[in-house]
């Protein structure tokens, strides 16, 4: 099969083009010579099946950040038939040197000059034919967001695949110092083939920035925006969640109960009260999570995250991090795993390690589900949002405290230089793709860890035979009693201790496990939870869940990204100790105050 690699700088619309070219069949995989996972997809171009690999966005083939090294070693170790480079039409002066670097390696790239609509609005005219002739490679003007030029890009790719021979570059090092020449070449190309106004004026962006980057108003507006995102998730998500729960219940009543009723009682209890209700309750949170990722995608694609980095850098600098670290913390609110991977843009290892130590404290969507579940069960509708807000603040506090404590040991001289892209309307297709990836991600987790976790918890809470399900005498309560010396002082009952044990694997299991072990739902379940913990114990439980290791996937990512068992070990030990100390402080403090 022929292989196409997509390269380009950040903010050029690489992933939009990738999604447009390949549809939704992408998967994440491992590649020779590359220690990280890359997104790839198979598609049909002309009459051939072609594999398309989306490489990380980079500024420079010869740079020193992990992303740049990833691209380099991918190209060194994998035969590529065609390199496709996506360029931002409004910044050809800035982007052509990278194209020339690729050209110089003997890989005749197909250059897709993207965002041509935006460039035209700015008064930029590009002579694609002449540019193509000078560069001796195809140049297509396109706009991946509205589909202009996509057909032509596709046809050019089909043509070029017919004629190219695979290249295996091993001459890379020889070109390491030829950059200045390339820049001069790029500049002469731009002056010949691109006409642009002497000064680009992005009126819209400048108008927005005057308000959003205002020295005094900027930060409050940022926090207001984040607050609105979470408020929207909460208010719009709750009815959606009820709807899914209702549908699942309907299915249970109409189909599952009559059918499964024929089974022996134990098996019925296991399948319906345990597995179905357990997984179903977890599934009912999926709409909330999708909604959350939709809104995050909108914020991310609009170009606002780079502004967030600008606004928070002064604060983050004091903590030994930088503005990008804050953006990664925000990304971590969705899921810690991609946020950890996002630290690859950092060149300095100590800054990367510090950011990776801090990110697991950001309150990810899986933990959000547990908190919504518990606050809805145990607190009034007025109290619940306040407690959620408190949890977000605790999440930031833990991250900042960690950075302060470890920042002295992990000092860095990383330059903080970040591109500030213009504001853009998020592309609906792109936002929908994010939602789809979330559903796929959930189904994958549900079919592996969550089912296994729920089944194990059901077994532990229903056996040995003759014990009260979810009560004394079960294996779970024995296990829980054994953990009591540690978890008792922080107000966690032996049953909840077992739940925490499984929460180590994935936080969604916590909800599934609570439902499966009791076989209860709705008001009865809330009643049961109330016997397990009062409101102080519930907050202590949630603080513990917030702070201890988020999930096995996060740990695995920390290990694969840091390539250090020691770092991963320190991270587990620190988060467990912090979780215990904070919960202990909170619970004992509340008891002392007489609650």
């Amino acid at each position, binding site marked *: 099969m022929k292989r196409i690699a997509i390269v380009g700088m950040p903010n050029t619309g690489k992933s939009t083009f990738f999604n447009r070219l390949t549809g939704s069949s992408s998967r994440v995989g491992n590649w020779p010579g590359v220690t990280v996972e890359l997104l790839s997809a198979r598609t049909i171009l002309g009459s051939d099946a072609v594999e398309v690999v989306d490489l990380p966005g980079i500024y420079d083939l010869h*740079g020193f950040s992990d992303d740049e090294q990833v691209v380099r070693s991918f190209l060194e170790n994998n035969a590529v038939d065609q390199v496709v480079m996506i360029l931002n039409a409004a910044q050809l002066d*800035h982007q052509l040197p990278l194209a020339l670097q690729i050209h110089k390696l003997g890989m005749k790239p197909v250059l897709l000059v993207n965002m041509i609509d935006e460039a035209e609005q700015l008064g930029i005219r590009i002579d694609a034919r002449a540019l193509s002739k000078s560069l001796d490679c195809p140049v297509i003007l396109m706009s991946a967001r509205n589909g202009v030029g996509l057909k032509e890009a596709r046809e050019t790719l089909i043509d070029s695949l017919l004629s190219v021979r695979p290249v295996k570059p091993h001459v890379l090092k020889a070109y390491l110092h030829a950059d200045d020449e390339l820049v001069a070449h790029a500049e002469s190309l731009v002056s010949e083939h691109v006409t642009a106004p002497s000064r680009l004026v992005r009126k819209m962006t*400048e108008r927005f920035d005057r308000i959003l980057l205002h020295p005094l108003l900027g930060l409050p507006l940022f926090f207001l925006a984040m607050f609105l995102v979470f408020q929207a998730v909460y208010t719009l998500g709750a009815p959606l969640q009820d709807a899914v729960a209702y549908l699942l219940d309907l299915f249970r009543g109409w189909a599952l109960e009559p059918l499964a009723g024929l089974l022996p009682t134990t098996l019925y209890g296991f399948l319906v009260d345990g597995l179905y209700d357990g997984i179903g309750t977890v599934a009912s949170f999926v709409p909330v999570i999708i909604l959350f990722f939709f809104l995050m995608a909108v914020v991310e694609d609009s170009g606002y995250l780079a502004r967030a980095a600008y606004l928070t*850098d002064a604060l983050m*600098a004091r903590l030994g991090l930088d503005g990008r670290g804050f953006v990664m913390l925000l990304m971590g609110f969705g899921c810690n795993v991609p946020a950890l991977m996002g630290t690859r843009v950092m060149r300095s290892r100590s800054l990367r390690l510090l950011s990776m130590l801090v990110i697991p404290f950001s309150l990810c969507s899986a933990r959000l589900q547990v908190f919504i579940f518990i606050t809805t069960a145990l607190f009034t509708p007025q109290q619940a949002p306040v407690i959620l807000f408190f949890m977000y603040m605790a999440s930031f506090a833990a991250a900042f405290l960690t950075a302060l404590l470890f920042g002295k040991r992990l000092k860095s001289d990383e330059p903080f230089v970040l591109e500030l892209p213009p504001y853009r309307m998020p592309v609906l297709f792109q936002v929908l793709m994010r939602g789809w990836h979330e559903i796929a991600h959930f189904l994958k987790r549900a079919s592996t860890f969550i089912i296994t976790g729920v089944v194990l918890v059901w077994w532990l809470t229903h056996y040995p035979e003759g014990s009260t399900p979810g009560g004394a005498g079960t294996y779970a309560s024995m296990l829980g009693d054994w953990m009591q010396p540690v978890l008792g002082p922080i107000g966690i009952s032996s049953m909840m201790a077992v739940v925490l044990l499984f929460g180590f694997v994935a936080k969604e299991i916590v909800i599934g496990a609570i439902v499966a072990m009791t076989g209860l739902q709705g008001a009865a379940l809330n009643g049961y939870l109330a016997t397990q913990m009062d409101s102080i114990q519930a907050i202590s439980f949630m603080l513990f869940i917030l702070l201890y290791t988020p999930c096995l996937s996060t740990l695995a990512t920390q290990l694969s990204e840091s390539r250090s068992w020691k770092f991963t070990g320190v991270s587990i030990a620190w988060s467990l100790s912090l979780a215990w100390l904070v919960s202990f402080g909170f619970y004992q403090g509340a008891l002392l105050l007489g609650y």
Partner: protein
Amino acid sequence: MKRVQKSMTNLSRLGTGETAHITGIHAPDDVRQRLQAMGLRTGREARVIRCTRLGPMQIRVGSVDLIMRRCDAARVEIAACDTVRIDIATKK
């Protein structure tokens, strides 16, 4: 447009709206490589779009807007003689 004559040595000393030509970058090889790839190259013109006392600066080089810390901007040497002040839309 009026010319301002100040003796300046690096980008961090420029104020909002001021422009100068880059004459060099003083940093270790890897840092310089990164700054150059982002567009900060000798001979280019850099303009300060926004700067505050505590936070990073916003710099425009060619078609690209960058945000960078003052301490990193200090690594970028600029020509002292051709500093030009242009009244641009972003007033402070």
